[in-house]
């Protein structure tokens, strides 16, 4: 796609008739980066200074170059192109690479696929050139060749050397200095370059020219950074016409889930996390993700989890394709048939409920409390995943704990007759409570091994004396006092039921 930086910008119609260019600043010099065909016809070319360009073409509309935004737009176009193949990569600055091996028959052959792609790009008003070749480098060169032989250039694998022989060496993606150097030697076309001895080329220009030739002719594999590797467990569906109604989306999800679950069941695997990606007409690809606590390939259950999140998908102007991928899977054998009415410890409905809630509220919102080996009341309970094995709790009758524990102990005004005794009355949240019965103290010291030593505060300041008190109404409180050496301070840390 020539002129991508200018094409990706939408312009009001009246601006389309004026020459446009983007400008970048290179070492304090403002230079043109990309020019539109109109500007090129007026005699402008990239790398001209802006002042010069303005002199040649006074009506030039100048836009700042934004390479990052260009790349992002290209990436979203590549994501859109995943409707054709799972392997679609942006090729900055202005190209896309699609690996259509094994996908073309879905569209009725390579030519039909290319025609479909061309028609859709036409609808986006994107001028483009397409080339199909056995190697990415050959396709790259053919798509950018000056005189394309038709709307789609297509060569058969193995014929790259013949097809590229007449093309200029600049199309091998060599840098300008190297191209100039080769040209000084009289080498202009790829065919001439290919006839040179490899060792001679390597000695003079380094490994790059021969490597590029090998890439183009399929003698060496060219690495391509695909933005998203296809998942081994994935189901996809591309639509002839974009869909958008919630019913259609739900039905698509059901079909994809059934497809994927059939394959998972055949492979004796279950999914533990699923991502459904919807590729929108405008290139955006909103996705919903769900996770399950236990691996599952039950299509109804997974579809229900996914459907619950479907309202988050904005179909925009329509959705072109949908992909459901199981990002993580785990082995899931069919359950052993039981001999008697023995039931498993974790009944499947519980896992389903937990999954529903975890996907709705977030995985951190559900937990099973487990005892923790610590005397610090705040640390006495930890959180396990809800389907974890039930931990063993033991009651310590000597250390009864409140049923409500405040995250932050609340300061209270307490009156104690003797420093070492429970208070006779205290004021909490504005109300006065007269103590009628109390037990204590239970002394709990800080876990000094958990923190770095701090000499500014004596260790005695971290010792809490806890009392269980009951007021005249019968309400029970868990109070503590700190400050063994100075003035005691009282706090309310919890309430008994």
């Amino acid at each position, binding site marked *: 796609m020539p002129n991508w930086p200018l094409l990706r910008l939408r312009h009001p119609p009246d601006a389309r008739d004026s020459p446009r260019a983007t400008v970048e600043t290179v070492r304090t010099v403002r230079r043109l980066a990309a020019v539109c065909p109109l500007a090129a016809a007026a005699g402008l070319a990239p790398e001209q200074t802006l002042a010069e360009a303005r002199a040649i073409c006074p009506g030039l509309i100048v836009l700042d170059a934004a390479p990052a935004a260009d790349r992002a737009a290209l990436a979203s176009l590549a994501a859109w192109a995943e409707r054709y193949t799972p392997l679609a990569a942006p090729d900055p600055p202005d190209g896309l690479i699609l690996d259509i091996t094994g996908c073309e028959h879905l569209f009725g052959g390579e030519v039909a696929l290319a025609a479909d792609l061309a028609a859709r790009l036409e609808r986006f008003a994107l001028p483009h050139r397409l080339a199909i070749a056995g190697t990415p480098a050959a396709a790259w060169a053919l798509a950018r060749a000056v005189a394309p032989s038709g709307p789609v250039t297509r060569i058969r694998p193995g014929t790259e050397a013949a097809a590229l022989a007449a093309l200029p060496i600049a199309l091998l993606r060599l840098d300008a200095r190297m191209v100039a150097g080769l040209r000084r030697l009289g080498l202009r076309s790829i065919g001439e370059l290919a006839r040179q001895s490899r060792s001679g080329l390597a000695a003079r220009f380094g490994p790059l020219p021969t490597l590029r030739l090998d890439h183009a002719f399929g003698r060496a594999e060219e690495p391509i950074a695909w933005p998203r590797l296809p998942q081994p467990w994935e189901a996809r569906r591309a639509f002839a016409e974009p869909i958008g109604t919630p019913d259609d989306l739900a039905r698509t999800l059901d079909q994809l889930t059934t497809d994927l679950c059939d394959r998972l069941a055949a492979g004796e695997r279950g999914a533990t996390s699923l991502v459904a990606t919807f590729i929108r007409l405008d290139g955006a690809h909103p996705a919903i993700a769900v996770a399950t606590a236990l691996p599952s390939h039950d299509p109804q259950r997974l579809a229900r989890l996914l459907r619950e999140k479907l309202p988050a998908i904005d179909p925009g102007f329509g959705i072109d394709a949908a992909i459901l991928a199981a990002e993580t899977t785990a082995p899931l054998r069919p359950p052993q048939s039981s001999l008697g009415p023995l039931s498993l410890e974790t009944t499947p409905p519980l896992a389903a409920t937990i999954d529903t809630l975890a996907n709705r509220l977030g995985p951190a919102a559900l*937990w099973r409390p487990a005892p923790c080996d610590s005397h610090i009341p705040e640390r006495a309970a930890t959180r396990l995943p809800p389907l974890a094995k*039930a931990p063993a*709790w033991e009651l310590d009758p000597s250390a009864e704990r409140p*049923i*409500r524990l405040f995250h932050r102990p609340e300061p209270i005004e307490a009156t104690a007759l003797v420093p070492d005794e429970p208070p006779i009355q205290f004021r909490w949240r504005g*109300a006065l409570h007269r103590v009628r019965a109390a*037990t204590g103290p239970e002394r709990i010291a800080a876990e000094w091994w958990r923190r770095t030593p701090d000499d500014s505060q004596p260790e005695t300041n971290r010792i809490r004396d806890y009392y269980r008190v*009951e007021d005249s109404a019968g309400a029970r409180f868990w109070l503590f006092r700190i400050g063994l050496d100075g003035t005691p301070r009282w706090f309310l840390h919890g309430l008994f039921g």
Partner: protein
Amino acid sequence: MPAPIPSTPVAVLRARLAALHPRVARGVWRFGDARVDDCLPGGGLPLGVLHEIAAGGIEAETGAVAAGFLACLLAGLAPRGEIFWIAPMTDLHPPGLLPYGFDPARLVQVQTGDDTETLATLETVLRSGSAAAAIGETGRLGRIPARRLQLACLKYGTTGFVLRRWPYGRHAAGEDPTAAVTRWDIAPAPSATIDHDPGPARWRVGLVHARGGIEGSWIMESTASGDPHAPHPLRVVAELAAAPAAAPARRAG
């Protein structure tokens, strides 16, 4: 179905009303004391329905005594299976449940964002049938959400509890009528002190509303003391004089 011929007009009406409510019989959980069980429809706390537990004053903010009483109930009426405790606040301290005979290992705690989410989550849990009982702490409970919860309870016979709690002191303007089968009002009561030490927890338990039963008020004491095989987690210490209503207001339902 051959029904016994009702003799009195009241019995006729009651039978007709009972036929209007296709309630699945899930049994009852007896308090083990005739003074309480006689007030409840079917002679005990009905299982597989929605109950509402509230407290007044500062307890409406902290929900401590209501949680303690609820822990005793759960220890008795749902001795096995998972219990979901759904609340926006995370101040429930699992070790504090042990003295009431409730094993926190069966607990699944769910933190929600607000009352609406609590009610929706509670309904999901009740409707799934995978829990032995489910508790939702919420301040707001309208007539329609309560009705939905009650229907969700009936589907699989999961017992549901709504613990009314306003952690930030936002009291509802008035007591909204709800679809819960029973409504309890819990307040602390002075315990029997032993040598100036607090004794087992006691509550002033008010049965404010019971569909098909009568109201009552008692002092109950927790007897569980952490023993899972205790005969009964609650003991009725005394019956309190019924509230102003001179004649027990009998409601059929």
